[in-house]
């Protein structure tokens, strides 16, 4: 199971059942081949109408290859529905296919038009209006995500600040490649840990690259694989991490906006009232986390699991996170 023909047949059967006997699948094509996820684009054609859709599917239709922290596709689909209800712009879910079915573990969602590439969104003239609106829209979207009632949600992992220090420190120590800047960051994070906030639904990877942006701004929030129960400041700070500003460092929010404006929009949309200084701890956590994740990607080369030049070279990007951490530490000194 898992060839394009099998998928086309599974989708065609579903389409006829839900859109009528004349419905057909067109233009099925693979968009990406991540280790944990297949993404396919296709259209359903029923009479005069054509609807662009996306199929998200476990590789080969089974969940065996997924990493331990990524949530299942069924949970991802449930999160899209729950956040949709809370007023977050997300792709509507059309169908959920359980493990063992003809399509395998998968779901079908609406295909939202727009751009995801950070550099294009930050640079191209067609996104000028979008850029002016994006900070406000992201503040609102984050407040709404964080407002989703936890009682109705499927079971998600919980990961607060202290859990993340412990987790990434264990990964870092396992490499036995001492890096004084990371050592300092772990020590500082432990010594300066803020009081945990009331736990909320956290997206976990809210940044350009995972947002669909059209000429009017934020069109859809994608990639819910790292969603968990955690601290709302994690999402706000992750959007500020310099790695996701794509060179536009002067704009702390995603390379497009200022933190004051984001926090105002967040509070106005019902989120807690945070000050920029409340975000510093989590931004340091975010830069450190991405540095350790880059080490992990290099680790896949070192162990031979992925011998590509790309995995080798990413080990020489860890110093990007080190300079970001140093710049953040210097900023703390200036604000204090």
């Amino acid at each position, binding site marked *: 199971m898992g060839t394009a023909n099998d998928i086309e047949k599974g989708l065609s059967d579903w389409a006829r059942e839900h859109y009528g006997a004349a419905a057909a699948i067109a233009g099925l094509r693979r968009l990406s081949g991540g280790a944990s996820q297949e993404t396919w684009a296709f259209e359903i054609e029923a009479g005069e109408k054509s609807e662009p859709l996306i199929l998200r599917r476990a590789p080969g239709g089974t969940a065996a290859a997924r990493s331990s922290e990524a949530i299942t596709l069924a949970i991802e689909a449930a999160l899209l529905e729950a956040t949709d209800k809370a007023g977050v712009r997300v792709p509507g879910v059309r169908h959920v296919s359980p493990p063992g079915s003809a399509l395998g573990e998968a779901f079908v969602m609406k295909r939202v038009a727009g751009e995801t590439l950070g550099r294009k969104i930050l640079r191209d003239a067609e996104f000028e209006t979008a850029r002016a609106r994006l900070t406000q829209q992201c503040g609102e979207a984050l407040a709404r995500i964080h407002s989703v009632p936890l009682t109705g949600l499927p079971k998600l992992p919980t990961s607060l600040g202290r859990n993340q220090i412990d987790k990434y420190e264990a990964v870092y120590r396992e490499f036995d490649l*001492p*890096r004084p800047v990371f*050592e300092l960051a772990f020590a500082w994070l432990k*010594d300066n840990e803020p009081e945990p906030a009331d736990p909320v639904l956290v997206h976990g990877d809210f940044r350009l690259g995972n947002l669909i942006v059209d000429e009017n701004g934020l069109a859809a929030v994608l990639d819910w694989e790292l969603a968990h129960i955690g601290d709302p400041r994690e999402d706000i700070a992750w959007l500020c991490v310099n790695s996701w500003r794509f060179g536009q*460092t002067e704009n702390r929010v995603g390379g497009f906006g200022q933190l004051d404006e984001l926090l105002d929009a967040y509070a106005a949309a019902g989120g807690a009232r945070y000050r920029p200084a409340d975000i510093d701890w989590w931004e340091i956590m975010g830069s450190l986390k991405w540095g350790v994740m880059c080490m992990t990607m290099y680790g896949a080369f070192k162990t031979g699991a992925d011998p590509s030049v790309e995995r080798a070279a990413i080990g*020489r*990007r860890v110093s*990007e996170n080190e*300079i970001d951490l140093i710049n953040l530490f210097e900023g703390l000194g200036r604000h204090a």
Partner: protein
Amino acid sequence: MHDAPSAKELIEAVKSFLDKTAMVQLQGHAAFHARVASNALATVLREMEQRPAAEARERDRLQALLKSDEADVGKLNRKLCEEIRTKRVDLSTPGLLTHLKSTTIDQLSVDQPGYSGLRTAAR
């Protein structure tokens, strides 16, 4: 041992082949990996040129910071990590942040000289 061509010349030749011949004939994933490979060779060339002096400066700073005459930079860095982990050294230690900043700037000048954070650090 002879040195004609030198290691530097060989790497330059391979990089030139990737840039001018291979990359233009490749598509998709292979073209992407060829570009990454060319960038990796550029890193190696910068490292050959910059590492000896940068590492000597790093050694001097570490020896002063740790009051040590150890010559091995790897061992000195292990020692510094241990000092930070056991809280004998922290952000308030004179010279620590300056040392880490200089070392990281030198490292990035080899690894990713175009990275935005390097410009921020230079301000």
